[in-house]
């Protein structure tokens, strides 16, 4: 047995208990209820009456959170790749919480997208009407196929809870195909995580040079792995906490070390890109754009890097929680800057999200968190049976 250490055990841990759990669920349930209602109102009333979106500002917080959630949900392919493809079995315990978070994330993404579509009734059209030049076409297909992959990857969590001969058989099949599923998942994710960056290459006239770059596909891909590792760390810690199991220090430390290196590479790419394009001066001279850039980079990349690489800070008990949270914040700011704050607008154009946009977003994210928590509680999230690997 590896040395099991309680790494994020607040003193109150013994007292987190049913009442709090119930209260959390009640709060989440309320969010889902209100958000669901907001979503239904939007579907029947149309975008004009329920959002602040206009022709000069057609994408708002729904798209911002959508692209953020896809990056976060990169936890699924990152961990499946790390353990099922690259055989880093020491991270085994962290795979399932991450894959479950990936599935919850992608389902939330699909719900948000349906709300955002002008014709939600036609959400499936991309299956029949093709445009292979369109980044969004590729993303749609990859998200559809990858959500299927996630369902396959999650199915054993459920099957292991069902003591029937048929589930035994299905489990064997599932174990047999898991390597293929993982390879396909990694491939599909590499494609659409990077294509989300390609998406912005079609708006050179709209996206500020602090974010617009031919390297966007690479930047989006690298940051999705970084975000994936961070969410996987938190999901593992969170699942351990919910199930009152000690989190293994080796897993948390290892994931955070990987996340730190990814963050370092990402920082180098971001700065190198601005340096090569000769646009580095914009980080001081572009007014509000510079400010957004600094918020993204300082709080979301440089500070967490300091936490992860300066030994004295690295040893703090809150670092394993705060550092990944900050890196996730940085990725979120990046997606929001690309979608909203980094957009070049006519001076008279502004957008301040409608209440219904907020409520529906909060509701859908609440549903994802709730589904994940319930999954952790009721599915085989820390395998009891020894699995595919010897």
């Amino acid at each position, binding site marked *: 047995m590896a040395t099991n250490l309680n790494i994020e055990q607040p003193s109150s841990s013994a007292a987190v208990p049913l009442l709090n759990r119930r209260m959390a669920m009640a709060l989440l349930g309320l969010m889902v209820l209100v958000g669901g209602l907001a979503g239904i109102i939007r579907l029947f009333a*149309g975008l004009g009456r329920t959002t602040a979106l206009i022709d000069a500002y057609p994408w708002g917080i729904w798209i911002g959170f959508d692209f953020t959630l896809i990056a976060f949900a990169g936890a699924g392919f990152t961990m499946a790749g790390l353990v099922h493809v690259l055989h880093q079995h020491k991270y085994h315990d962290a795979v399932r919480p991450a894959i479950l978070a990936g599935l919850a994330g992608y389902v939330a993404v699909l719900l948000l997208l349906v709300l955002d579509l002008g014709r939600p009734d036609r959400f499936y*059209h991309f299956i029949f009407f093709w445009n292979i030049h369109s980044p*969004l076409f590729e993303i749609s297909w990859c998200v559809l196929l990858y959500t299927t992959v996630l369902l396959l990857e999650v199915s054993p969590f459920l099957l292991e809870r069902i003591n029937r001969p048929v589930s035994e058989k299905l489990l064997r099949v599932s174990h047999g195909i898991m390597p293929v599923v993982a390879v396909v998942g990694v491939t599909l994710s590499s494609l659409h995580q990077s*294509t989300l960056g390609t998406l912005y290459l079609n708006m050179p006239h709209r996206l500020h040079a602090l974010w617009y770059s031919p390297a966007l596909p690479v930047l989006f891909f690298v940051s999705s792995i970084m975000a994936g590792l961070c969410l996987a760390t938190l999901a593992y810690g969170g699942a351990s906490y919910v199930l009152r199991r000690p989190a293994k220090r080796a897993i948390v430390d290892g994931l955070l070390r990987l996340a730190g290196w990814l963050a370092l590479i990402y920082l180098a790419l971001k700065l190198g890109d601005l340096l090569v394009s000769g646009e580095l001066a914009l980080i001081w001279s572009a007014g509000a754009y510079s400010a957004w850039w600094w918020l993204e980079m300082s709080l979301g990349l440089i500070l967490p890097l300091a936490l992860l690489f300066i030994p004295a800070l690295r040893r703090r008990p809150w670092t394993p929680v705060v550092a990944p949270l900050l890196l996730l914040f940085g990725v979120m700011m990046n997606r929001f800057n690309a979608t909203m704050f980094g957009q070049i607008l006519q001076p008279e154009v502004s957008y301040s999200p409608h209440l219904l946009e907020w409520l529906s977003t909060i509701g859908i994210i609440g549903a994802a968190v709730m589904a994940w928590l319930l999954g952790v509680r009721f599915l085989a999230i820390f395998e009891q049976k020894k699995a595919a690997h*010897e």
Partner: protein
Amino acid sequence: MTAQPTLSRRDFLKTAGVGAAAVTATCVLGSQASPALASGPASENGWAMLIDTTRCTGCQSCALACKEVKSRPNPTVEPTALSSEAYTFIDLRPQADSEATINVKRQCMHCQHPACVSACTVGALRKTADGPVTYDDKKCIGCRYCQYACPFGVPTYDWNNPLGLIHKCDLCVQRLAEGERPACVASCPAGALHFGRRTDMIAQARARIRSNQRRYVDKVYGEHEAGGTSMLYLSGVPFSQLGLPELGEQTISHQAEAVMAKTPLVAASVATLATGLYWLLKRRDLKLNEAQVTLPQEDSHGH
């Protein structure tokens, strides 16, 4: 069931390879199945419109004629912007040193290589060989990506409709098929709109500039902008005063299309790399295991 780890491992490997091959094949086939919709060779001689802003009086006849032909709501209200109600209007731009306005007709530019067409998720927007950029309202899902890709701010969404769609000028493709000119051209009382083949319109614009050098700035806007447009503008003042964006000669979507063209390659590379690493590292693990004492591995199947 007695497990035979080595055998099943080999099976895993095979299936992984098959899976990777399948992904690759799907991507390669996919790329061949659909011909280049977005940036097929744009006809240099498609229909085009020459808009002489020095002749435009700003009467909005074109805008109202368009509304009527396209059955837009509020047919008698003169529009002040592009919207789902108005596919064209005349932008009356005040000048600093004069009472008179500069009148700039705005509508879809019908680009030679339209970024909206390249971006459209479901291929609802198309560049026809004859010039018009058309829109299929049966396909559109309302994602509004075209609004971001268009550098001219042309596609508009019908925000007040719960099942809203994108709206924009289609160069009266229906009237063209019937041998008629677009409604705006037919309705212009000032002789500001000319319609014909693109090369002819460019030649005519050049001839006008040559014959009246004091009237015109020596530039035809749209000849090269963003790879060229079917709408060509003449102006008496620098084009920066017309509210038309300053654009280079590169098409808007060239970078995105170059990356998208690599999709099959990326898919094949990642799938191959992942399968290769899976296999190599698995072998390494196996060797490590062999080096150790053979441990019972059937535990997993007994209860």
